[in-house]
């Protein structure tokens, strides 16, 4: 018998927090606000832990139906929660990392305006994210999906006084709409053809279907879902919003734009594995998009000088990795990387935040350096993160990335090759950042750091920490760093010996029976012979990926530690390429040119001036004007003379009689 | 009975009834003058004939031969029509009044002593009397004289006010007898309590109250003392018929007394058991005795009229209205309710 775990509490606790802070936070002290926020997010985390404790005694998937939501004929959607291994992983990641980041935020945001607002949004985000991962059907998931989009918009534009922040928020929101469009169409297709949105029903109705070797319904659905995922998880071509999203406060970047929200796409794809497994073409699309994004973003990351931008692009490329994993059918590998990435990327962002905090709002790495001794805690934790992401064993990143690459290699060497290249780039730019930030001598001016950050209400408030100069962050910020550092170190060990895969196996292989033989996607239940043969090659690949990691380290060391003047020369040498990359391949400009500008033009000329002004407003104004005119003439009927009224009445009666007679004659 | 015969009999009855009625009217006047005279310790008319018995005839002749003058500035048609209306309705209402049993003359004629027996006779009477108001109102208005106008106003107001009480006072009787037909109402009153008290409505089911109310209302309806404000000589010269003279005046006069008679008949029929009374002797007596009893009762009623006139002073107008609305009407309503309750409980 399975205990009744009140899953609904998990999302609702943060919501309660959000409500309390949102409604009354204005009058609360900062202590009270942070207490409330931490209390509820922590409660959610505790609840998640308790659920995890109950895990062994559950029969999965465990579905908890709260109330019917909408019924239309046979189509029915409930407020129901769905819990299985995948949900558990996501749950732990979201609540855990979320809670840590909440703690961190208390320290980081302490001096900011709109303290309560920040935590309201943060809790709200938690609510929606948890709804997303606990939903038992795509519609409820979509609610969470949109909700996190909203929260992200609010938080990116948190410093709404800064135009760039507001613009970035809008950009994120609009770009996401594009993805949601695809997602919605996919949902409509599902409703149309399978009459349901529940995971369980869909699995039941889809698994009997055959693999679509040629493009078909499932392929279409899959690709559309991928579009949605690309929007949310910042994949080509919709990744452009994520770098700009760095306008938001750093904890937000850590929580939403690194650890949790952006991984929602990955989660959604893996959740839809039933569909993808039967749509190889869609799978290929996913894989290719992932590969391209990974590499592309990595290259951009090399040239960025803004500490957060670097991390942003690395996030994009890491997400690319996850999609490679999904694309090659190694969903568990993707989720695995998702988890580890949540640890070390969250860590990196928080550390970066700590650095920024330390240098008083400065984000340009060129103005940093030599911070190693000044902020040791931050340094060491960041180091752990960097090594983790660079895929240096035995840190978390190594296991997950290696797993993905290995699985990819079994599908196509191209994925593997690009992946390896990307790994190299990743380790290079990460170490580049590491060196630029912590080694060498401090390049920023000692005092008055704030002069060049007055523009941002978000950061210049860091000046009014009592003591000038570089300083370590308070313990409340360091504690999460340390915890996350530990996780980034040990987080990967759960993957040793496929433990993590086996743990997720029941989720992903409950329905993949047909796919196992007819589709060459590597299945966790891989044939034993393949396993034997694979071992050696896997080892080789592992060595290679470690090698590229080290290589990247060395190169970065060479360029940014030994001879810091060298990069400039190189940049000069391949000028065009450098600038292209520096300007992110002008993607934003291209989009602006081919999409945004025409769109604005059309909207202005056709929709706004033409339709809205010319037709809609015109009709309304015209009718109003006409009504006024008519009544102006009509009111002279109001002679105040009873008999004229009587005359009108008689005329009206006559009309009615005529009408009725006419009707009677007509009917006969 | 053939139609021709029926018409003949009807005509005979009409002629008879009207003759009796007019005579009655004439001699009521005589009686009034006599009685009031004696009450006031005078003789009353004595010159014309024995006990002045021919006085009414003399008066009639005088009215006929007086000059009939029409004052200027009157609304001609209405001025002339008003008295006719008044007298017409006053006389019409007698048509449905039964004053005796059915009689058989020979074996061909078998007819009620009543011009016509309609099953809503009571309503007819009420309707006709209510129309009688027009005569007075119009006369008051048409003769273009402030006294007349005031008289007419008073008269119409008073009559429509008291009409309600009058009607309601009859409802009790209707409930008891369960019919609008006067004849049936009378038959419902035949019989005796304990063998000697006649089973008249006045003794029956608290209808004494109804009778009282009816009496008051009737006086008001007929503009008699103590409610004769429309023709209050001391204030309004002669009220609505100030401008009338000769035959037109006589018509109003006749109308008033005819109304009195009608009201008396109605009271007799409704409360005093109509023509019921001890009947004996040969057939001719059995036919005539009821008529005698009926006439006797009406006479008593008339006498009360005169007696009251000789006794009571005149009300003030506001007193009149207050009495009508604040006393008579509630009492009448209460009577109706109580009677209805009694009947409902008994059945």
């Amino acid at each position, binding site marked *: 018998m399975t205990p009744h775990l009140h899953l609904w509490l998990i999302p609702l606790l943060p919501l309660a927090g959000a409500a309390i802070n949102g409604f009354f936070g204005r009058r609360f002290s900062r202590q009270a606000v942070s207490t409330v926020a931490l209390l509820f997010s922590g409660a959610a985390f505790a609840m998640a832990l308790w659920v995890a404790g109950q895990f062994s005694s559950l029969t999965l998937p465990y579905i908890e139906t709260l109330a019917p939501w909408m019924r239309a004929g046979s189509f029915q959607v409930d407020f129901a929660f769905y819990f299985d291994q995948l949900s558990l992983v996501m749950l732990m990641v979201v609540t855990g990392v979320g809670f840590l980041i909440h703690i961190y935020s208390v320290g980081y945001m302490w001096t900011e305006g709109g303290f309560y607002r920040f935590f309201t949004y943060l809790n709200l985000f938690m609510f929606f994210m948890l709804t997303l991962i606990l939903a038992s059907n795509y519609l409820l998931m979509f609610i969470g999906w949109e909700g996190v989009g909203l929260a992200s918009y609010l938080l990116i534009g948190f410093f709404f006084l800064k135009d760039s922040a507001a613009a970035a928020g809008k950009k994120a929101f609009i770009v996401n709409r594009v993805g949601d469009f695809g997602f919605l169409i996919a949902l409509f297709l599902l409703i149309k053809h399978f009459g349901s949105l529940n995971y369980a029903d869909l699995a039941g109705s889809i698994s009997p279907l055959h693999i679509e070797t040629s493009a078909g319904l499932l392929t279409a659905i899959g690709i559309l879902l991928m579009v949605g995922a690309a929007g949310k998880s910042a994949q080509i071509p919709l990744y452009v919003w994520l770098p700009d999203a760095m306008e938001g406060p750093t904890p937000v970047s850590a929580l939403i734009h690194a650890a949790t929200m952006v991984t929602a796409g990955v989660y959604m794809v893996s959740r839809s594995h039933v569909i993808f497994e039967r749509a190889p073409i869609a799978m290929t699309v996913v894989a290719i998009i992932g590969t391209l994004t990974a590499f592309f973003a990595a290259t951009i990351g090399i040239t960025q000088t803004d500490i957060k931008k670097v991390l942003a692009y690395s996030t994009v490329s890491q997400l690319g990795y996850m999609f490679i994993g999904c694309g090659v059918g190694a969903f568990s590998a993707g989720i695995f990387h998702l988890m580890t990435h949540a640890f070390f990327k969250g860590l990196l962002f928080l550390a970066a935040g700590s650095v920024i905090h330390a240098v008083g709002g400065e984000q340009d790495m060129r103005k940093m350096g030599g911070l190693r001794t000044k902020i040791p805690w931050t340094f060491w934790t960041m180091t752990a993160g960097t090594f983790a992401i660079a895929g240096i064993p035995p840190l978390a990143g190594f296991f997950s990335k290696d797993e993905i690459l290995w699985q990819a290699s079994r599908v196509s060497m191209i994925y593997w090759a690009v992946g390896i290249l990307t790994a190299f780039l990743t380790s290079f730019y990460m170490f580049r950042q590491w060196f630029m930030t912590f080694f060498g001598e401090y390049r920023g001016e000692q005092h008055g750091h704030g002069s060049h950050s007055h523009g941002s209400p978000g950061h210049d408030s860091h000046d009014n920490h009592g003591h000038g100069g570089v300083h370590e962050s308070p313990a409340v910020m360091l504690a999460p760093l340390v915890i996350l550092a530990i996780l980034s170190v040990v987080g990967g060990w759960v993957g040793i010996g496929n433990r993590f895969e086996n743990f997720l196996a029941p989720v992903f292989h409950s329905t993949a029976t047909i796919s196992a033989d007819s589709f060459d996607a590597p299945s966790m239940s891989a044939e034993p012979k393949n396993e034997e043969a694979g071992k050696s090659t896997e080892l080789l690949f592992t060595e290679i990926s470690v090698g590229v990691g080290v290589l990247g380290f060395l190169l970065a060391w060479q360029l940014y530690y030994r001879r810091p003047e060298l990069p400039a020369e190189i940049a000069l040498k391949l000028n065009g390429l450098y600038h292209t990359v520096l300007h992110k391949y002008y993607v934003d400009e291209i989009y602006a040119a081919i999409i945004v500008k025409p769109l604005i033009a059309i909207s202005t000329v056709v929709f706004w001036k033409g339709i809205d002004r010319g037709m809609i407003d015109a009709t309304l104004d015209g009718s109003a004007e006409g009504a006024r005119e008519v009544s102006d003439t009509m009111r002279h009927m109001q002679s105040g003379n009873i008999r004229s009224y009587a005359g009108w009445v008689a005329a009206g*009666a006559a009309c009615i009689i005529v009408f009725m007679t006419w009707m009677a004659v007509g009917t006969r | 009975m053939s139609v021709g015969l029926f018409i003949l009999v009807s005509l005979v009855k009409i002629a008879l009834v009207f003759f009796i009625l007019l005579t009655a009217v004439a001699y009521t006047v005589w009686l009034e003058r006599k009685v009031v005279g004696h009450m006031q310790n005078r003789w009353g008319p004595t010159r014309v004939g024995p006990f002045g018995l021919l006085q009414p005839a003399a008066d009639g002749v005088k009215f006929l031969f007086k000059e009939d003058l029409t004052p200027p500035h009157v609304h001609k048609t209405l001025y002339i029509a008003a008295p006719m209306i008044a007298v017409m309705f006053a006389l019409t209402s007698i048509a449905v009044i039964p004053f005796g049993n059915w009689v058989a003359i020979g074996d061909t004629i078998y007819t009620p002593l009543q011009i016509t027996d309609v099953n809503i006779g009571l309503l007819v009477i009420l309707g006709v009397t209510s129309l009688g108001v027009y005569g007075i109102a119009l006369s008051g208005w048409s003769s273009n004289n402030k006294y007349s106008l005031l008289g007419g106003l008073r008269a119409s107001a008073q009559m429509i006010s008291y009409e309600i009480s009058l009607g309601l006072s009859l409802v009790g009787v209707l409930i008891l007898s369960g019919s609008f037909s006067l004849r049936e109402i009378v038959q419902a009153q035949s019989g005796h309590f304990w063998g000697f008290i006649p089973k008249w409505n006045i003794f029956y089911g608290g209808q004494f109250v109804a009778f009282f109310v009816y009496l008051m209302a009737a006086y008001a309806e007929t503009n008699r003392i103590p409610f004769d404000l429309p023709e209050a000589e001391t204030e309004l010269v002669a009220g609505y018929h100030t401008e009338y003279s000769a035959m037109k005046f006589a018509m109003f006069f006749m109308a008033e007394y005819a109304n009195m008679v009608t009201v008396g008949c109605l009271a007799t029929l409704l409360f005093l058991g109509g023509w019921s009374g001890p009947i004996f002797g040969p057939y001719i007596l059995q036919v005539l005795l009821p008529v005698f009893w009926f006439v006797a009762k009406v006479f008593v009623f008339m006498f009360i009229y005169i007696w009251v006139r000789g006794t009571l002073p005149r009300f003030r107008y506001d007193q009149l209205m207050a009495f009508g609305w604040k006393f008579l009407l509630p009492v009448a309503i209460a009577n109706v309710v109580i009677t209805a309750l009694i009947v409902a409980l008994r059945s």
Partner: protein
Amino acid sequence: MHLILFLIFGAVCVAGAVNLLLQHHPIDSALSLVVVMGALAAEYLLLGAEFVAAVQVIVYAGAIMVLFVFVIMLLNAGEEARSGGSRIAWVIGVPGMLLGSILMAWVLLKHSGTGQVEVGSLPGSPQDIGWLLFHDFLLPFEVTSILVLIAIMGAVVLASHAQSAEKKEG
């Protein structure tokens, strides 16, 4: 016989109604209306609705119209003033009314002879009426009683401090 009586009283009705329109003095109009009502009562009798006829006479002719006459006398209403009234009433109202009534007549004649009404064809006796009124139509009856009560109070309030008694009569 029935037809003849109908025609006679009908003619009286129409004559009265037309006279109401032609007369310039309200009291003449009022009297012609009384005539109309009397004739209508006769029509009701022809239709066998004797009770309705009686009530028509008592209530309409005997009470309401008396009230009218009374008010006319009270306000001493004179001849109708020849004020150039409202053109609309003439321009729109009268033609409309005419059109409407013509259409009605046309329809009625089209359907004429659908039914014959003979004298006393239905029991309009007080008993039946009373039964209907106090059983089937009890609620409407009570409601109308309340309506009348309200009307009385309204009249008293409106015409307070003058002739309230007569208003109550309505």
